[in-house]
């Protein structure tokens, strides 16, 4: 339940102001727009990675702005895609001479608004491309991968695209690598409780005691299936069964792993679950590469978590390992 606010209508504005006040060592406010940009943007000769979406998912999206990561994040209201106008303004602020890549989770509202901004920027001669993250296997069956929504897999796609951009890769190349990262990333999640929008008193959905939702979204959308609650080891199997059945065609054996908390799930619980995830990965002959057990893409104070696998190769691994610095993720 959202407890800390002044006027719910000012929530986004106040959160941006607070974020910039706290993390002014990584970002500054985009003038006259709902977003933040890296201190060194626009970066001459470098592709600008622009990410964004509704608020309520911190560290996504503003927590991932900085050297080696995104050039800017466009920030919508809680769970509402930013408007095309805001996407446009942020793009103008950070576009250098090497083009812009939009990267965001595949939701109707984001697609509509980013697409409209892309069109407008292109009319002005800015080369903008788009890669939508579609990692959530629960949201559409195989064969319709492009219809899937983006959840915690955002993180791997942003990291890889951001590193390619920082390296000075061309827009074609950054786009290709982001698309490849997305094509090799799969997520599946479970929820134990819903979340509440600022100023509202009832949660978006509730999960009955003793039950859980499978295939949840990161906007308090209920899951695609309900099940009785199970021990951690069975949940680990359930998550992995879904991901492994959907492994990308050219999958190798090295996987980056993210066990992502949605907000109210305890870190300790996630480690207990990770123990069973790790064992199962090894038993499947997979090598977990630098696993992350943390809150990387949240859903307000929703209880639950998701498991993401990104099948790496010699091209993606160095990009994942490349240095970066942002409010929420530092690598060195």
């Amino acid at each position, binding site marked *: 339940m959202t407890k800390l606010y002044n006027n719910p209508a000012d929530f986004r504005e106040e959160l941006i102001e607070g974020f910039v006040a706290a993390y002014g060592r990584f970002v500054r406010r985009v003038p006259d727009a709902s977003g933040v940009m890296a201190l060194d943007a626009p970066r001459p000769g470098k592709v600008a990675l622009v990410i964004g979406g*509704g608020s309520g998912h911190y560290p996504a999206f503003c927590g991932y702005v900085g050297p080696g990561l995104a050039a800017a994040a466009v920030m919508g209201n809680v769970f509402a895609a930013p408007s095309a*106008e805001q996407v446009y303004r942020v793009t103008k602020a950070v576009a250098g001479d090497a083009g812009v890549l939009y990267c965001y989770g595949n939701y109707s*509202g984001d697609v*509509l608004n980013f697409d409209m901004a892309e069109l407008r920027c292109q009319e002005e001669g800015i080369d903008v491309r788009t890669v939508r993250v579609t990692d959530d296997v629960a949201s*559409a069956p195989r064969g319709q991968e492009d219809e899937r929504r983006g959840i915690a897999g955002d993180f791997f796609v942003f990291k890889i695209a951001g590193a390619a951009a920082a390296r000075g890769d061309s827009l074609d190349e950054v786009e290709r690598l982001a698309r490849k990262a997305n094509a090799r990333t799969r997520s599946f999640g479970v929820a134990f409780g819903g979340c509440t929008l600022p100023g*509202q008193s009832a949660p*978006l959905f509730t999960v009955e005691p003793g039950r859980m939702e499978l295939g949840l979204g990161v906007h*308090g959308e209920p899951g695609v299936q309900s099940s009785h609650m199970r021990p951690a080891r069975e949940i680990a199997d359930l998550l992995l069964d879904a991901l492994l059945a959907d492994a990308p065609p050219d999958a190798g054996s090295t996987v980056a792993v993210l066990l992502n908390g949605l907000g109210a799930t305890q870190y300790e619980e996630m480690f207990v679950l990770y123990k069973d995830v790790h064992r199962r990965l090894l038993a499947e002959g997979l090598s977990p590469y630098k696993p992350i057990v943390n809150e990387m893409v949240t859903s307000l104070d929703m209880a639950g978590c998701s498991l993401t696998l990104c099948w790496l190769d010699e091209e993606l691994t160095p990009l994942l390992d490349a240095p970066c610095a942002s409010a929420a993720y530092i690598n060195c």
Partner: protein
Amino acid sequence: MGSSEIAVAVVRRWLALALEVITAHEEELGRLDAAAGDGDHGATMVRGLRAANAAVEKTSDGAGRLLIEAGAAFSDASGGASGALIGALLSSVGRALSDGPFDTATATKALQAGLSMVMRLGKAQPGDKTLVDALKPFVDALAAQPADQPLPAAWRAALPAAQAGAAATREMAARRGRSAKLGERSLGHADPGATSLVYLLQAMEMALAEKCE
């Protein structure tokens, strides 16, 4: 009052009434959206309509211009899918309205332009459980009215088609928008965007009655 002053008065009154009606139903729209989406549709619409009302206060142009400004302000303040689509609807209706007499034929043509913009942007077809399922039947019903029918009466006559369209979304499984991912789970709840569109059309019915009859 000439036709174009009437049109301006109608648009202003409509925006004010729309904000009232949607605010009164904010909770309901949120609940409908929460059933399979992310629960923010009520809040999004209120935010957009507040901004649209504020935007037209500053403008003293014709009705078409007012709608264009209102649409831009709506989109920017709302964000989300409905922000983009309803904002585009307002703006393209505004563009198509231009000068001309403020009658049923003009309104119909303008709304047809709006509808096709919404369908082009959102790529939703009738039956996909979106606001198109309320908007398209309404526009078709309006077009079917006798050409010489005064706009308030034509509008009133077309409204039941929108309501029936919105009600029918209850039986549809979502294929577009956030709730599309939930497939079957969206069955049994009316689409929030179709529901709020009916409120917008009802607000227009009242505005027309007040200002034209």
